[in-house]
């Protein structure tokens, strides 16, 4: 379900305000009374700042008269003290921080691809401790009720037999996992993390709009929002005495540790993610790092002997607890949904046998149907003997004839939702539909009433949101969280994920629909605990140097990150060598080395630089090699690959490395003909120069800031292998068939291999092929030479984990063979020309060039081979694949 539904402002749709369109900035309507409150709250940078805002019922920040509510006063005072200019400055910094940290939320179908920056508003939502206490009591009761409900549905099903819950909500419910029936979960805990979407109505009461029970998202974003806000508004945060979030996560961690079937002292816990294409992948990586869990995709896990194992380079490591962000039915292709391999085949049987704890328990999605809200009051009395403390939004399940009659009679006052979120039907507002579609919907409802749920259109409260330096009203929904505690109860998160609507009259509050988010400040009655989960908090940590086991998939991705980064650097240096020559000289006659370089470019970037005629307009050949995203070997494409692979391993590389990667991509997404004009050679040169520096920064960070663990080895092997390939290709294209005037070509080769300074120091200006070849091929003290790459590769390969008794492994032998042939060669022989080619050089380059893919395959075979994908056996696999898409939980 994509989001929470709101009521459009009763006054109907308003024209967009100055924040939404620059066109309306000129026209300034009279300042109207409803806006007054927000204007008094914060001095605007723009003295006029007029804005007509629809005035919905309850405003979080202001009393109906317009004065700030008491618990907001400190925040607004603090903002006033900062002043608009300072606030704007800090907010720019915060946005840079969000971007640099790579906080993203993937919007399906977004042209920006998989990295949309997270939308955070600088004004937090402030909640009193009294309000929070009401929510806490209500939600804890609700979660207790939901756990009892789950225990019954996956056990005796007394509620169905006694008619307390219609079987129509269970039997056809795709969230009801028959494979989990009769399976007991550790300590009877189903909901290790529970999320509830809350809205506040006109009467000031909070109501639950929906329950998120299988894999609620957003708790990690709440944490990230908090970290950004404490940096942006530290004074306000201190003065308002805001409750901290760390204890909540600590409680969650303790519970998962406590529920591990074995190794309770130090269980291995993984966070199971659907992968980087999921809308909340950033959060998965972020939470994994914060909680100290290994981030794993289904393919990283395997089942042997009815236990779940993590595939690491050294072998298989048993897993005790899986904190999953994968929807229920995707978790096991063997026993659950067969058409997705995002999960772990055999997982259900491990759960059944109690060898692994899955949080939340498999099958918890069954109660996410909004229809459940209609039955909770009755169920609460029956199961807990209590009245439900926290109301839900008024809800009717249309399968009940009396409810159906009501819904048909009040059709235009309601929102219609599918009974099971998996059906992907969007919520429909009959009142907003054209007559024809409204009639269609009514007919559909009457034909299959049990497929629909109706909810009253709740008038959601509003709160100030910063929009172009001004405060505007937006509607809000808060997602609150509970974590199971070790005493059988629940801990309440004093905070939450507040989402605001994209416009003041939006029908749906949803991140998928372009809304924004806010930090949620729950005020403390007493002094605030300074407890923190971050290392400075004095947490005692056992000294270790291993840093956890590297999942094989992560090693594979680091290897490819190394290869792409180096490919980008090699290509950038070659392109720069070409563009410099185009820019400096007028014609081809001035640059006799250009044909050789264009030929090298052709071999590396598929550029259409064929033969001498291409030389007529070399720059026209260079442009696509830089910018053309259609060409997968262009620089822009390679840079995009770097960013993609880096985003997949972002939990393994440092924040600085990630920032460098972010900088790297900046220009690649812009079309080549920005502002309608083709870039000039000087502009392209500028891009290439910046690119070289950024790539060098990445290499520097890799060399200076990464521990020499397995991860670094794979990254380094990728870089060295790629650099060796690049050097071989460059020398093949330029020096195997010597140009008539070779001096400029030799000079260009030295420049592209970044060895010109060394050469000049050694040989002054005398350019000789044998001396150049010695420096760029043979000299192991030159970190750019071919021999140096091969020596490093051999060293990396030696350090990979392997059983010590066995002799040299294939990858060790291949690395030594390549290195040996380079060491054996003599520079003078390599430089010898026979029949206008250099046969010895050609032979060496071909020979070493052939070893590279063999070596790469051997490494894959040895360390990454269990990355094989699972498949179904043939005949009993009756389904067509529908792709690996999950239904999100509608953050």
């Amino acid at each position, binding site marked *: 379900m994509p989001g929470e539904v709101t009521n459009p402002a009763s006054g109907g749709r308003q024209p967009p305000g100055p924040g939404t369109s620059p066109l309306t900035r000129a026209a300034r309507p009279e300042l109207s009374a409803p806006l007054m409150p927000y204007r008094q709250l914060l001095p605007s940078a723009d003295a006029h700042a007029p804005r007509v805002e629809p005035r919905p019922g309850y405003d979080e920040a202001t009393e109906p008269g317009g004065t700030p509510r008491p618990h907001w006063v400190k925040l607004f005072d603090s903002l006033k003290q900062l002043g608009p200019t300072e606030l704007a400055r800090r907010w720019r910094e915060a946005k840079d921080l969000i971007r640099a940290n790579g906080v993203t939320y993937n919007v399906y179908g977004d042209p920006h691809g998989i990295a949309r920056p997270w939308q955070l508003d600088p004004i937090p939502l402030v909640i009193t401790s009294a309000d929070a206490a009401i929510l806490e009591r209500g939600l804890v009761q609700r979660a207790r009720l939901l756990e009892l409900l789950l225990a019954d549905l996956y056990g005796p099903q007394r509620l169905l037999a006694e008619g307390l819950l219609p079987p129509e909500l269970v039997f056809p419910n795709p969230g009801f996992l*028959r494979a989990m029936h009769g399976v007991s979960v550790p300590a009877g805990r189903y909901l290790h993390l529970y999320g509830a979407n809350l809205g506040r109505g006109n009467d000031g009461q909070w109501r639950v709009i929906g329950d998120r029970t299988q894999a609620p998202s957003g708790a990690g974003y709440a944490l990230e929002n908090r970290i950004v806000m404490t940096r942006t508004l530290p004074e306000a945060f201190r003065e308002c005495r805001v409750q901290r979030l760390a204890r909540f996560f600590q409680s969650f961690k303790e519970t998962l540790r406590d529920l591990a079937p074995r190794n309770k002292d130090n269980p291995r816990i993984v966070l199971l993610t659907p992968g980087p294409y999921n809308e909340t992948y950033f959060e998965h990586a972020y939470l994994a790092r914060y909680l100290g869990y290994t981030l794993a995709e289904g393919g990283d896990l*395997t089942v042997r002997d009815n236990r779940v194992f993590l595939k690491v380079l050294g072998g298989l490591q048993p897993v005790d607890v899986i904190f999953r962000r994968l929807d229920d039915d995707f978790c096991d292709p063997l026993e659950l949904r067969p058409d997705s391999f995002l999960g772990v085949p055999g997982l259900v049987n491990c759960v059944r046998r109690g060898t692994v704890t899955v949080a939340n328990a498999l099958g918890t999605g069954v109660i996410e149907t909004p229809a459940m809200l209609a039955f909770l009051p009755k169920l609460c009395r029956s199961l807990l003997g209590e009245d439900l403390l926290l109301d839900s939004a008024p809800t009717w399940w249309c399968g009940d004839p009396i409810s159906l009659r009501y819904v048909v009679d009040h059709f235009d006052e309601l929102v219609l939702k599918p009974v099971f979120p998996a059906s992907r039907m969007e919520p429909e507002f009959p009142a907003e539909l054209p007559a024809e579609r409204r009639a269609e919907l009514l007919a559909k409802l009457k034909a299959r009433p049990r497929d629909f749920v109706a909810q009253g259109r709740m008038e959601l409260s509003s709160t100030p949101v910063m929009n172009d330096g001004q405060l505007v009203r937006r509607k809000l929904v808060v997602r609150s969280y509970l974590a199971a505690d070790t005493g059988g109860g629940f801990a309440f998160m004093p905070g939450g994920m507040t989402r605001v609507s994209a416009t003041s009259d939006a029908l749906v509050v949803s991140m998928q629909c372009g809304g924004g988010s806010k930090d949620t400040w729950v005020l403390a009655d007493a002094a605030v605990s300074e407890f923190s989960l971050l290392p400075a908090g004095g947490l005692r940590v056992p000294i270790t140097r291993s840093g956890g086991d590297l999942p094989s998939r992560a090693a594979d991705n680091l290897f490819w990150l190394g290869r792409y980064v180096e490919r980008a650097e090699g290509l950038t240096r070659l392109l720069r060598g070409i563009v410099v020559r185009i820019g400096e000289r007028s014609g081809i006659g001035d640059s006799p080395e250009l044909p050789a370089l264009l030929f090298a470019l052709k071999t590396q970037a598929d550029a259409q630089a064929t033969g001498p005629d291409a030389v007529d307009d070399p720059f026209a050949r260079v442009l696509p090699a830089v910018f053309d995203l259609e060409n997968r070997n262009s620089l822009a494409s390679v840079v995009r690959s770097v960013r993609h692979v880096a985003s997949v391993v972002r939990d393994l590389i440092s924040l600085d490395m990630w920032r460098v990667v972010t900088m790297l991509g900046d220009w690649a997404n812009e079309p080549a003909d920005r502002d309608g004009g083709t870039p000039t050679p000087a502009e392209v040169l500028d891009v290439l120069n910046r690119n070289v520096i950024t790539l060098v920064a990445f290499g520097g960070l890799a060399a200076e800031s990464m521990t020499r663990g397995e991860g670094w080895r794979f990254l380094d092997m990728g870089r060295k292998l790629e650099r060796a390939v690049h050097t071989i290709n460059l020398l093949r294209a330029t020096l195997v068939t010597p140009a008539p005037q070779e001096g400029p070509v030799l000079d260009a080769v030295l420049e592209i291999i970044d060895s010109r300074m060394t050469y000049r120091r050694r040989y002054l200006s005398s350019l000789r092929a044998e001396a150049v070849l010695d420096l760029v091929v043979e000299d192991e003290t030159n970190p750019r030479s071919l021999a140096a790459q091969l020596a490093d590769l051999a060293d990396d390969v030696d350090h990979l984990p392997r059983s010590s008794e066995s002799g040299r492994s294939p990858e060790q032998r291949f690395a030594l063979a390549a290195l040996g042939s380079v060491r054996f060669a003599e520079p003078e022989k390599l430089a010898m020309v026979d029949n206008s080619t250099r046969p010895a050089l050609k032979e060496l380059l071909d020979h070493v060039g052939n070893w590279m893919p063999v070596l790469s395959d051997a490494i894959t075979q040895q360390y990454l081979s269990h990355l094989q994908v699972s498949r*179904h056996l043939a005949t009993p696999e009756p389904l067509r694949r529908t792709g690996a898409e999950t239904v999100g939980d509608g953050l």
Partner: protein
Amino acid sequence: MDSALHRKGAEYIDPMTRYAITHVTTYSYTEPVSLCQNVAHLFIRPSAHQRAESSELVIAPEPAFLEVRPDYFGNPTHFFTIQEPHRELKVTARHRVTVLPSLPPADNNPWEGVRDRLPRHTAPAWLDAYQFTFDSRYATTEPRYAAYAAESFTPNRPIIDAAAELVARIHREFVYDPRATTVSTPVSEVFEKRRGVCQDFAHFLLACLRSLGLAARYVSGYLSTLPPPGRPRVVGADATHAWVSLFCGDAGWVDFDPTNDQIPTDRHVLLAWGRDYEDVSPLKGVILGGGQHTVTVSVDVRAETSPG
């Protein structure tokens, strides 16, 4: 997959029939498989009409782990895992089963009564039946299936009579054609092409009955075939079969075989039931490795002459 009987069940009925069944499934791989996890519905489900005197499942290579327990629908289910590299998997099920002829129930009330009571009745048998009224992956309900079925399900008609006529119409109007469909063909295509095999006819019959609001389940099992007159029995030429069981209210569940236009008596041997094929496929599994693979299935259902 299965062959039609030549005549409708008027043959001499033995009071008790014994079958010796051998069902072999073999997977051959071009590359070694390093891990193979399976779920099998290959054991005889005991019922009022049949009893397995002996049953065994032989798996080669020997699984590292094997467990049998009932699934959600009460079918005996085997879970097994092979963890050693192998290029062939062979699963052999052997059963000796005694089957009693079933008699059509005397109670045969109007179908609407069953339909109307299903959503409201919370007695265990009715609640259990109710789950088989809903859509499942392979048997989705549609108004056009209800319309097709309504020609037989006329007002106040006794439910067994109506179902028997619907089954006869499907048998008459649909062509048995193993090349027309695959295991993944949706029921809508079966309906449009009017072609398929036993599994397709069973799914279509389920879709019709459920579209009317009735409860019907998919039954997987074996069928003892008779050789053509004058020809010897060919060992291994039989097949797994599929038919449908309809909930007829107080009369209980009554089986219908749309492929053969029959109410099964003593030539059908029940393996397992569920909402559709997906719940009870005889053998499913997930493998790691294997390259290309081929599967061969051979089923032999041999009637043993009963003493006396």
